[in-house]
C-alpha cells in the first residue's frame, strides 16, 4: 500500500465516520426504533474515535512524507458535462484543514462524553445526539471542503443543527424564539455565502478553491482573480463569516444561543460554530492579499467585534453569556490577525481559544456549586478580592455601561430597521389581499381570522 493510497483511505474514513454516525442515529428514529442511551453513546464514541485516529494518522503521514496538500477526489456528485456544470465532491487535507478537523473531533468527542452523563435520562437525549451527529458531519465537511459547494453543504448542516440545539428545551417559548433568531441570522449569512459561490463560479468558472486561491498549498496560494472581483467575493464571504461567527452587527444571536444545553453551548457556540466564520476567512485568505480594501474591512470588523465583545462580556450577569461575549472578543482578535496576514498565529489562536472556551463552558455550571461547597467548608463567605470602594461614574462611563448592558442595541437596531419594516410591509400586502378577496366574494372572505387553537372538535376537522 502506497502512502498516497493510505492517505486516500484514511481521508475517506475521516469523512465517512460522522456520516455513518448520522445514519446510524437517524435511521432508527425514522423507523420508530428506540436505541438505548448506552448504544447511542457507544456509536458516538466509536465514530469520533475512528475519525480522530484517522485524522491524526493523516497528519503523521503528511509530516513524515512532507506532503502539504492532499486532495481526495470523490468524483462528481452531479454533473452536466456539456454545460460544464459539476457539483464536485472534493476534500482537501492541508495545514489548515487537518488541525481544524482534529480540533473538531477532539472537542466533539469531549463534549459527547460529557453529554452522555449531563443529559442522562433527559427526554431529548436522542434528539440531542442526532443533532450532535449532524453538527459533527457539518463541521468535518466544512473543515475539509475542497470546493465552495462542499463547504456550503457542511456550512448549512452546522447552521441547522446549531439553531435546533438552541431551541433544545422546546417546552418553553424562550429557547424556541432564540433558536429562530439564530436560524434567521444564519439564513442571511447563508444567502451571502451562496451569492459569493455564484460570483466565484462566474469569475473563475469553477467552485474549486484551487482555482480561486491558486495552486499553491495553504497558506502560500495566490488568488487568481482581479482586485475588484476579490473585493466582491470577499465582502460577501466576510458577511457570511460575520453572521456565522456572531460578529458585529450579528452578535445578538450569541448570548441567545446560550439557551441550549451547556454541552452544546460549549462545543457549538463557544468553540467550533463560532470559529467557522474565521475558518472561512482563513481558507480564502489569499483573496485578502489581492484587495487592500477587503483587508481593511476584515481588520475593521474584527476590531469592532473585539472591542464590543470585551465591553459586553464585562457587564453580563450570567456566566454563560459573559463567556459568549468573551468568545466574541477572541474571534474579533483572530479576525484582525487574519486581516493582518498572520495566518498561522490566527490558526493557533483559534485552536487554543476553542479548547480553553470549551473547558470554561463545561466547567461553568459546577463552578458556583463548588464555590458554595468551599464556603460551607471554611464556614464564611469567600469574598475574593477587596471590594472596590464606590465612586461616582462619569457620564461617559454610564453611557458605555448602558451600551454594553443593552448589547450595543444591535438586536434592537436589526429589529427596528429590518424585521419590523419587513413585517409591516407584508402585513400591509396581506390586508390589501383581504380587502380584495372580501370585495370579490361580496363579504367576509377569511374564516381563518377567527381561528382559535383547538377550536374545532375532532369530528369538525375540515
Amino acid at each position, binding site marked *: 500500500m502506497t502512502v498516497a493510497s493510505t492517505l486516500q483511505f484514511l481521508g475517506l474514513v475521516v469523512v465517512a465516520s460522522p456520516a455513518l454516525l448520522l445514519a446510524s442515529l437517524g435511521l432508527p428514529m*425514522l423507523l420508530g426504533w428506540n436505541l438505548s442511551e448506552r448504544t447511542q453513546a457507544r456509536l458516538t464514541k466509536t465514530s469520533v474515535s475512528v475519525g480522530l485516529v484517522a485524522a491524526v494518522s493523516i497528519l503523521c503521514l503528511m509530516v513524515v512524507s512532507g506532503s502539504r496538500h492532499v486532495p481526495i477526489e470523490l468524483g462528481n456528485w452531479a454533473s452536466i458535462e456539456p454545460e460544464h456544470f459539476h*457539483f464536485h465532491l472534493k476534500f482537501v487535507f492541508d495545514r489548515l484543514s487537518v488541525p481544524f478537523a482534529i480540533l473538531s473531533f477532539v472537542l466533539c468527542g469531549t463534549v459527547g462524553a460529557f453529554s452522555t452523563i449531563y443529559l442522562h435520562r433527559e427526554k431529548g437525549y436522542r434528539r440531542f445526539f442526532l443533532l450532535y451527529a449532524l453538527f459533527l458531519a457539518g463541521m468535518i465537511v466544512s473543515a475539509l471542503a475542497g470546493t465552495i459547494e462542499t463547504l456550503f453543504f457542511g456550512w448549512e448542516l452546522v447552521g441547522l443543527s446549531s439553531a435546533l440545539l438552541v431551541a433544545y428545551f422546546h417546552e418553553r417559548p424562550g429557547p*424556541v424564539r432564540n433558536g429562530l433568531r439564530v436560524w434567521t441570522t444564519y439564513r442571511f449569512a447563508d444567502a451571502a455565502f451562496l451569492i459569493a459561490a455564484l460570483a466565484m463560479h462566474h469569475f473563475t468558472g469553477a467552485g474549486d478553491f484551487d482555482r480561486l486561491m491558486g495552486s499553491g498549498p495553504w497558506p502560500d496560494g495566490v488568488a487568481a482573480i482581479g482586485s475588484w472581483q476579490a473585493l466582491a467575493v470577499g465582502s460577501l464571504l466576510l458577511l457570511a463569516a460575520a453572521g456565522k461567527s456572531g460578529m458585529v452587527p450579528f452578535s445578538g444571536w450569541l448570548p441567545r444561543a446560550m439557551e441550549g444545553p451547556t454541552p452544546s453551548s460549549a462545543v457549538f457556540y463557544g468553540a467550533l460554530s463560532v470559529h467557522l466564520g474565521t475558518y472561512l476567512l482563513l481558507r480564502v485568505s489569499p483573496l485578502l492579499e489581492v484587495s487592500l480594501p477587503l483587508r481593511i474591512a476584515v481588520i475593521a470588523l474584527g476590531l469592532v467585534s473585539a472591542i464590543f465583545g470585551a465591553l459586553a462580556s464585562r457587564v453580563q450577569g450570567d456566566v454563560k453569556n459573559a463567556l459568549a461575549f468573551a468568545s466574541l472578543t477572541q474571534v474579533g482578535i483572530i479576525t484582525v490577525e487574519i486581516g493582518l496576514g498572520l495566518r498561522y498565529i490566527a490558526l493557533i489562536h483559534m485552536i487554543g481559544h476553542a479548547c480553553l472556551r470549551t473547558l470554561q463552558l463545561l466547567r461553568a455550571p459546577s463552578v458556583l456549586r463548588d464555590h458554595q461547597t468551599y464556603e460551607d467548608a471554611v464556614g464564611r463567605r469567600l469574598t475574593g478580592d477587596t471590594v472596590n470602594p464606590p465612586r461616582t461614574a462619569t457620564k461617559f462611563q454610564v453611557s458605555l455601561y448602558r451600551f454594553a448592558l443593552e448589547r450595543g442595541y444591535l438586536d434592537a437596531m436589526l429589529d427596528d430597521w429590518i424585521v419590523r419594516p419587513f413585517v409591516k410591509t407584508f402585513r400591509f400586502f396581506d390586508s390589501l389581499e383581504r380587502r380584495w378577496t372580501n370585495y370579490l366574494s361580496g363579504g367576509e*372572505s377569511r374564516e381563518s381570522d377567527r381561528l382559535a387553537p383547538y377550536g374545532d372538535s375532532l369530528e369538525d376537522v375540515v
Partner: protein
Amino acid sequence: MSELHLPWLELSVLLPLVGAIWVSLLKNRDRARKHSIAVCGLTLICALGEWIDFSSLGTFAAHDHWDVLQLIFHRDVFVIDELSAPLLPLGALLYFTTVMTTLRTKLNRFSLGWTLFSESVLLATLTCRHPWLIILLLAVAVVPPWVELRKRQQSTRIFSLHMGLSLGLLAIGQFFVGDNASASNPSIFAGCLLTAGALIRSGICPLHCWMSDLFEKATFGTALLFVTPMTGVYAVMRLVFPIAPEWALQCIAILSLTTAVYAAGMALVQHDSRRFFCYLFLSHSSLVLVGLGLVTPIGLTGALCVWLSVGISLLGFGLALRSVEARTGRLTLENFHGLYEHTPFFAGMFLLTGLASIGFPGTIGFIGTELLMEGVVEIFPLVGLAIVLAAALNGIAVVKAYFHVFTGTRHHPSISMSCRPTERITVLIVVVLIIGGGLAPQPGIHSRYHAANMLIRLREPVPQPHNAAAIKNELAISPQTTLLTETPKRKSNND
C-alpha cells in the same frame, strides 16, 4: 413514434375513473376508503410501469401499446414524452398518499369519488399534448373543487372568477394561434392571452388570490390535490413554451421571480397554517416557472428538477401538516402548540420535507435549486439574486412554522395523537424519495437535462436537417398539431 409495451397510459386514466364510479356507489364509507386506496395504488403501479417502460425505450415520446383510443379515433390521444413521463407517477403518488393519510373522521367532508375523478382528469391532462384537449381537461379539473365549495356552502366567487378568466383566456388565445405558429414565428396576441391564462392558473401575483381562497375554504386535501400537480406550469410548457419568443418567456421569468419573493415574504407573516402552506407552495411553484422562462439548458434542467423535488417535498410537507391538523383542528401560527412530544414522527417529517423544499443539502431539492440559481444568474445577473432571497425567506418561514406547531409549550391532548400505520408508510415513502433523490441526484438530472435539451430544440427556428429529421421522427408531428392529426404509419417496438 415509439410504443410502450403495455397500455399504461390508458390504464392510468381509466382505473381511477372506473374507481370513482364504483366508490360513489358504495354506501359504507370505510369500505369506500379501502377501495379508493386500492384503486390509487393500482394507478400508481400503472404510472410507475409507464415511467419505467418509457425510460427503457430511450426515446423522446411514446404512446400506448394496444391503444384503444387510437383504434377508435385514429388519433394518438394519450402520448407521453420526457417532460411528462415522471410527472405521471408524481401525480399518482400525490393522490395515493393523500387518500392513504385520510383518516376516517374526515370522510364525511372529503369526497373520495370526486378525488378519484380528479386523479383521472389530472393523469389525462399530463398524458395529453393537444392544446384544445389540455384546455378542456383543465376546465374539467375545476369541477371537483367547485362542487366541494358549493357543498360546504362557501362562496365560490373568487375561485370561479379566476378559473373562468383563466380558461377563457386560454380558449381565446388558442383560437387565435395559427397552425404554423412557432418560437420564430410567434403569434403575439394569442401568445399573450395564453400566457395570461396559464399564469392565472399558476397563481402568479397579483392574480393569485384564488389559491389562498381555495386553501381557506376547501378541505386541505382537495386544495392540496388541486394545486400541487402544478397544472398551470404544465399549461405554460405545453401551450406557451413552444410558440413564445424568448423575450416573452423571460418576462414570465421576471414575473415569476417577483411572485416567488412576494409569496415567500407573505408566508412569513401568515397567521393560519394553511395560508402559510399556500404561500410557501406559491413561492416554490413560481421558482419552477422562473427556470422554465430562461430557455437555457441549465435553467430549464434546474426548473424540471425543482418541479419534481418541490412536488415530492411539498406533498410530504402538506401531508404532515394535514395529519397534524386531523388531530388538532386548524392551526394558527400566532401561538405555540407544543405538539412535538405527541407527534415526533410528524415533527421530523414536517422539518425534513420543509427543508427539502428549500433545497437543503442532502435532500432532493439541493442540486435542482443550485442548477436553477446558476441558470437564473446566468441570464439575469443581479435580478437573479432575488432567488437567493426567496430561498432564504422560505427557509425561515419553514422553521418558524415548525417551531410554532411543534414546540414552545407543553400540550396535553385528550386523545392519542400517535401516527397510524398508513400514515407512517406514506411518510416513509416520501422520506425515501427525498433522501434517495438527495444522495443520488445524477440519474434524475441526466434525464431532466435530456428533456430540457429536447424541449429547447423544439423551439429552434431553423433546425439542422438531421436534428429536424430526428425530432420529427420522434414526435411524428409539430408541437402545436401533434396529436389530433393522423399518424399514418406507426412504428411498433416489435418492428
